[in-house]
């Protein structure tokens, strides 16, 4: 077991865990931040997406020992983030969510996309969001919501 001090949503958090523990489980089990979801466990679905050092990251495959001093941002902080707020508002206005399980990952990915590409094309959206799976098939609404958020932000 090792002790790590992580910066999560701007707050220092100390955890004592096995170095190989994926960040996802540190967030959910040790820090009780359950907004980030477990989907596949192999980085194939995107449900566990968080931002690490500003990069959309699959937290289910990144051991806590490899985080270093990079700040972690999770879905719990999105309401306080201007882009996150715009995306969440667009999500509501387009009634994107069906079952909702994948949506925290979808929103984290959409926010990362809009922060790097403020006016994404359909191609940008499909390439970037293509790794986030939604078994309810809300993809069309996700795309429209991203465009709405983009318009609101630019």
């Amino acid at each position, binding site marked *: 077991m090792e002790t790590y001090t992580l910066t999560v949503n701007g707050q220092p958090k100390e955890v004592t865990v096995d170095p*190989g523990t994926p960040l996802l489980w540190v967030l959910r089990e040790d820090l009780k931040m359950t907004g980030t979801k477990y989907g596949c466990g192999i*980085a194939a679905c995107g449900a566990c997406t968080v931002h690490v050092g500003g990069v959309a990251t699959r937290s289910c495959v990144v051991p806590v020992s*490899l985080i270093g001093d990079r700040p972690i941002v999770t879905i719990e902080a999105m309401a306080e983030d201007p882009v996150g707020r715009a995306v969440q508002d667009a999500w509501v206005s387009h009634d994107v969510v069906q079952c909702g399980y994948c949506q925290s990952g979808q929103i984290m990915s959409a926010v990362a996309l809009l922060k*790097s590409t403020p006016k994404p094309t359909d191609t940008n959206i499909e*390439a970037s969001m293509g790794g986030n799976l939604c078994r309810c098939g809300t993809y069309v609404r996700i795309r429209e919501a991203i465009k709405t958020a983009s318009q609101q932000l630019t």
Partner: protein
Amino acid sequence: MRAYKAMLQATSVILVACAAWSASNPIGSAREGVAHKTAARASTRAEGLAAWQQVYSVLTHARCINCHTATNYPQQGDDRHRHFANVVRGPDGKGVPVLQCITCHQESNADSTGVPGGHNWHLAPLSMQWQDLNDKILSSAEVCRAVTDRSKNDNLDGQGLLRHHEEEPLVLWAFQPGRRIDGTPRTLPPLTHERFVAATRTWVEAGTPCPQNR
């Protein structure tokens, strides 16, 4: 049999006579020296080509060639299948904003989750593709020509190529590729890194010769 022995004796006499003439004849000695130098150059080129074949065996191993694709996606696994999760090349070989290589691949291998990692994980540029659009590995001559073409290889000369093989973190990763998600070690290239660098050095010192065939 008697005739054969006589022929051998005659041949020996001629050879001894030729050697004696050669030793006493400055023109003959000079010619011999040129012949030796030519033989040495040929030998060096032959050694270089042999060394290149060793280098080629590493470059076309899955640990290397999976990121030297001709397509807009990387490959993975020893069977070189398309990378899962709709991962694409992106404009600079590092993926697209939400699906960058570093979305999963960190600075070092993550053996607890089976994700390989190394500094600046990325695809090789399309100019360094070592397979065709059907994922067929290019021939030794084709890969050699690409690797030595400074308009394609980031303007690396022989010494630059040697340094690349000695020091580039992702080259080094190929020889310490970590474990798969099931805990088994990933397969290694056919040479150790030390032998790979030695083969590269021999090839570079021979002037980076490439096979002539296609």
